[in-house]
C-alpha cells in the first residue's frame, strides 16, 4: 500500500518461509526512501497516462527513476536534489494535474507490513493446501495400510509447520481475547486448529483411518482470505484518507525583525505576528493588527456571506481571508485554539459511537459458546455411550472442524469489500468498516447547508436588474476583486456576453468594495453603506452598484446548489426517510434553499453544540441519524450522528470526524450509498443464513460420527464459495 520503491532488490531464498516473512516485511516497509518525492495524480487512468507521466519525468536529466502506481494514483520520483515544486511543472507539462503529498502524513508503513504479512501467510497456506489435497485425494479414493500411513505422515510434515506459521494471527488474537475474558470468533478457530492437528498426529501414529491435516490447512487458507480482504478494504480507505490530509501542508508566515519566515503552524506561539495573504486560511486564533479584508467564515459557522475584518477584529483558525493582506497577532495557537477545542467535543461524541457492535460481533457472540458446547456434548455423549476416549475425541474434533466459521469469517469481509468497491467507483470513500452496516439503519438524514447542499459559491439571481448600459462597467469593476460576490457577478456578466468597459484609477478597498473612474464619473461596487445606499432588510446576500450620481442598484445573490443535491434529497425522501436541514446561516438564506429543494423540516442560526444536540435528540427515539456536513460547526454533529458523511472539500477536522468522505462534487451518490448499504446488510444476513444452513446439515452428521475428512473439506469449500459468490452479486 505504500509507495513503490525504486531501488533494485535481488531476490534471495531461504529454506524456511517463516524465517523469511518477518524480516522481509520490515525490510520492505523501511524501503520507502527519504529522498523520494511523492506526487498525487488524480487524473491518471490508463496505460498511456503511465507512459506520458513517466516519460515526462524521465526526460529530466536529474531524475533517476519515476514509477507511477495506478492503483493509488501516485508517482514516486527518485530525483536527488529536486523538490516537488520543480517536478510538478514537468508532469503538468504532460497534461496531468499533480499535487504534492507530505510523505510523513502518509506514514502507512506499519499497516503495510501487516498486509504483506497476511498475504505471505495466505500464500503459504494456499500452497500447503494444494499439496496436502493431492495426497488426500489418494487417501479418499481408497489408499490403505502402509500407503495411507505414509501419505498421512507426509501431509502432517507439510501441515504442521504451515498451521504454526499461517495460523499465528488466529492464535495471537484468540490468546488476547481469552486473557481479556471474552470468547471471540478466534477462540473456536484456534481451538479447532490445535485440537484437530493433535488428533491427526495421534491417529497417524496409531495408523488410524482419519486424519484432518487437509481440513486444518484449508481452514487456515479460507480464513486468511477473509482476513486479507478485510485488511485490504480498510487499508485502501485509510491510504486515501491519509492522502487527503497529506495534501494540506500546514504553514504560516511569521513576521520577524528581519522579514517574513515560513514556519509550521504547530510552532506558532501566542504573541507572534503572522501575515495572512488573501486567499489563504487563517492558521491560528488572533486579533487583526493591520489591514482590512473580508473573511469567509462559512466553514466555521455556516454563514454564506463574508464578514468585514479591520484592526481589533477577532479571527479564528480555519477562516479564509478573501480580499486584503492582514497582519494578525496570535492569541491562541495549537492546543488552545478554537479548532482544537472543537475537536475535544468530537472526541467525546465519538466515544459514544465506539460502542456500536457489528453484525459479525453479534454473530460470533452467539456462535462461540454454541460451538464449544456442541463439541463438549458430543465428547461426553460418545464417551458415555461407548467408553472409547479416542473415538469420542475424534468426533469432538470433527464437530469443531465442521462448525468452524469458514464461511462466517468470509461472510462480512467479502460483502464489505464488494460494497465499498462499488461506492468508491461512485466517489464515496468508506473510512470505517462498520459504517455500511450503520448506514443501512438510517431513518433520518440531516444536511448542513453551506458547502454541503450548496457549493458555498454565490450566483447572481437576476441579471435583468442591471441596465444594459451599466453592464460593461459592472463587469470591469467585478473583475478587479477576488471577493466571492464580485467573482459571481463577473461570471454572470461574462456568460451574458458582456465586454468589460475601460476604467481608470481602479482600487479595491478591503472590507468595503471596488471603486474606479469611468468617463470622468466615480463608479463603486460594494457594501451598502460604502456605496451610499440604505441597506434595507434584504433576505439574500447582496452587493450594490452605483454609477456616478445615479441611484445605487441592489444586486442580489443566491447560493449555488451542489450538483445532484435536488436528486439526492428527492431520492432520500422517496425511500421513506426523513430529511432535515440544519444551518448556522440566517433564516432567510436557509428558507430559500429549503424551498428550492423541497425540504420541509429546517432550522436556521443553529450554534455548533446545538447542532450536535439536535442530532442526538433526533436519534433518541431509536431512529438512526445520518449527518452530512463539511464545516467545523458540523464536526460535533458529525461525530454525534449514527453515521456521517463529509465532502472532500471539508476541513480536516470534519473529515476525521466522519465515516465516509464524498470525493466528487456531485451529491447524488449519497442517496445511492444508502441503497447500497441496505443491500449490503441484506447480503451479510443472507451469508450468515447460508453458513448456518450448512451447519444445520453438517453438524448432525458430525455428531452422529459419520463425518469424514472428505466431507469436512467439501462442506468448507462449498460454503466458502457460495458465500463469496453471494457477496459478488452486489457489484
Amino acid at each position, binding site marked *: 500500500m505504500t509507495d513503490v520503491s525504486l531501488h533494485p532488490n535481488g531476490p534471495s531464498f531461504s529454506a524456511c518461509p517463516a524465517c523469511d516473512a518477518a524480516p522481509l516485511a520490515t525490510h520492505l516497509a523501511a524501503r520507502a526512501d527519504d529522498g523520494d518525492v511523492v506526487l498525487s495524480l488524480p487524473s491518471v487512468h490508463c496505460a498511456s497516462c503511465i*507512459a506520458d507521466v513517466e516519460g515526462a519525468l524521465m526526460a529530466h536529466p536529474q531524475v533517476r527513476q519515476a514509477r507511477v502506481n495506478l492503483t493509488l494514483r501516485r508517482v514516486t520520483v527518485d530525483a536527488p536534489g529536486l523538490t516537488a515544486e520543480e517536478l510538478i511543472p514537468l508532469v503538468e507539462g504532460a497534461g496531468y494535474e499533480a499535487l504534492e503529498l507530505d510523505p510523513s502524513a502518509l506514514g502507512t508503513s506499519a499497516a503495510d507490513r501487516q498486509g504483506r504479512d497476511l*498475504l505471505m501467510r495466505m500464500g*503459504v497456506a494456499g500452497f500447503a493446501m494444494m499439496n496436502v489435497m493431492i495426497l488426500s485425494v489418494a487417501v479418499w479414493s481408497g489408499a490403505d495400510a502402509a*500407503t495411507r500411513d505414509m501419505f498421512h505422515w*507426509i501431509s502432517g510434515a507439510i501441515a504442521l509447520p504451515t498451521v504454526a506459521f499461517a495460523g499465528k494471527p488466529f492464535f495471537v488474537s484468540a490468546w488476547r481475547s481469552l486473557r481479556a475474558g471474552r470468547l471471540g470468533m478466534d477462540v473456536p478457530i484456534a481451538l479447532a486448529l490445535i485440537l484437530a492437528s493433535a488428533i491427526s498426529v495421534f491417529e497417524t501414529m496409531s495408523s488410524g483411518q482419519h486424519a484432518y491435516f487437509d481440513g486444518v490447512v484449508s481452514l487456515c487458507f479460507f480464513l486468511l482470505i477473509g482476513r486479507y480482504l478485510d485488511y485490504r478494504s480498510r487499508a485502501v480507505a485509510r491510504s486515501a484518507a491519509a492522502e487527503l490530509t497529506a495534501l494540506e501542508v500546514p504553514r504560516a508566515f511569521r513576521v520577524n525583525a528581519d522579514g517574513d519566515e515560513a514556519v509550521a503552524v504547530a510552532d506558532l506561539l501566542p504573541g507572534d505576528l503572522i501575515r495572512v495573504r488573501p486567499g489563504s486560511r487563517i492558521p491560528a486564533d488572533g486579533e487583526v493588527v493591520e489591514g482590512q479584508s473580508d473573511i469567509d467564515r462559512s466553514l466555521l459557522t455556516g454563514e454564506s456571506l463574508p464578514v468585514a475584518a479591520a484592526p481589533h477584529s477577532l479571527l479564528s483558525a480555519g477562516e479564509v481571508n478573501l480580499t486584503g493582506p492582514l497582519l494578525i497577532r496570535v492569541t491562541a495557537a495549537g492546543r488552545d485554539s478554537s479548532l482544537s477545542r472543537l475537536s475535544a467535543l468530537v472526541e467525546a461524541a465519538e466515544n459514544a459511537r465506539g460502542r456500536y457492535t457489528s453484525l459479525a460481533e453479534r454473530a460470533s457472540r452467539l456462535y462461540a459458546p454454541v460451538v464449544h458446547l456442541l463439541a463438549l456434548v458430543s465428547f461426553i455423549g460418545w464417551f458415555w455411550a461407548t467408553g472409547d476416549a479416542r473415538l469420542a475425541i475424534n468426533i469432538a474434533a470433527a464437530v469443531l472442524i465442521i462448525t468452524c466459521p469458514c464461511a462466517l469469517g468470509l461472510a462480512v469481509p467479502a460483502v464489505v469489500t464488494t460494497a465499498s468497491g462499488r461506492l468508491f467507483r461512485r466517489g464515496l470513500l468508506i473510512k470505517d468498516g462498520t459504517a455500511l452496516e450503520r448506514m443501512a439503519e438510517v431513518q433520518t438524514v440531516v444536511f448542513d447547508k453551506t458547502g454541503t447542499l450548496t457549493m458555498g459559491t454565490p450566483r447572481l439571481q437576476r441579471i435583468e436588474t442591471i441596465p444594459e448600459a451599466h453592464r460593461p462597467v459592472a463587469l470591469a469593476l467585478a473583475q478587479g476583486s477576488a471577493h466571492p460576490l464580485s467573482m459571481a457577478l463577473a461570471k454572470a456578466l461574462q456568460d451574458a456576453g458582456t465586454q468589460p468597459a475601460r476604467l481608470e484609477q481602479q482600487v479595491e478597498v478591503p472590507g468595503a468594495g471596488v471603486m474606479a473612474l469611468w468617463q470622468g464619473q466615480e463608479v463603486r461596487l460594494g457594501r451598502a453603506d460604502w456605496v451610499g445606499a440604505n441597506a434595507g432588510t434584504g433576505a439574500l446576500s447582496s452587493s450594490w452598484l452605483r454609477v456616478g450620481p445615479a441611484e445605487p442598484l441592489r444586486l442580489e445573490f443566491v447560493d449555488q446548489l451542489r450538483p445532484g443535491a435536488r436528486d439526492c434529497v428527492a431520492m432520500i425522501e422517496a425511500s421513506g426517510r426523513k430529511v432535515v436541514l440544519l444551518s448556522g446561516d440566517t433564516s432567510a438564506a436557509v428558507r430559500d434553499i429549503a424551498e428550492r429543494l423541497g425540504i420541509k423540516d429546517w432550522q436556521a442560526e443553529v450554534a455548533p453544540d446545538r447542532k450536535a444536540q439536535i442530532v442526538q435528540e433526533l436519534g433518541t427515539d431509536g431512529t438512526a441519524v445520518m449527518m452530512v456536513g463539511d464545516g467545523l460547526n458540523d464536526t460535533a454533529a458529525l461525530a454525534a450522528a449514527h453515521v456521517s458523511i463529509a465532502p472532500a472539500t471539508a476541513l480536516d477536522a470534519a473529515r476525521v470526524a466522519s465515516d465516509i468522505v464524498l470525493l466528487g462534487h456531485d451529491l447524488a451518490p449519497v442517496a445511492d450509498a444508502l441503497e447500497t448499504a441496505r443491500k449490503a446488510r441484506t447480503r451479510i444476513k443472507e451469508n450468515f443464513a447460508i453458513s448456518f444452513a450448512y451447519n444445520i446439515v453438517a453438524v448432525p452428521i458430525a455428531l452422529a460420527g459419520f463425518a469424514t475428512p472428505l466431507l469436512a473439506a467439501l462442506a468448507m469449500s462449498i460454503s466458502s464459495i457460495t458465500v463469496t459468490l453471494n457477496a459478488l452479486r452486489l457489484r
Partner: protein
Amino acid sequence: MSILGLLIPVSLAMGGLGLLAFLWSLRNRQYEDPKGDAERILTKEWDERPRP
C-alpha cells in the same frame, strides 16, 4: 506402486517451486499496483528489449 517413490517427491518439489515463485513475486513488490500492471502490459514500450 514403486512409482510413488518418484511421483511424491516430484509433486512436492513442484509445489515447493510454486511457493518459491510466490515468495519471489512478493519480494519484488508485484502486488503493489495490480491495476497499473494490468495496464502496463498493453504498452509497446519495452516490447523489443527488456527495461534496463
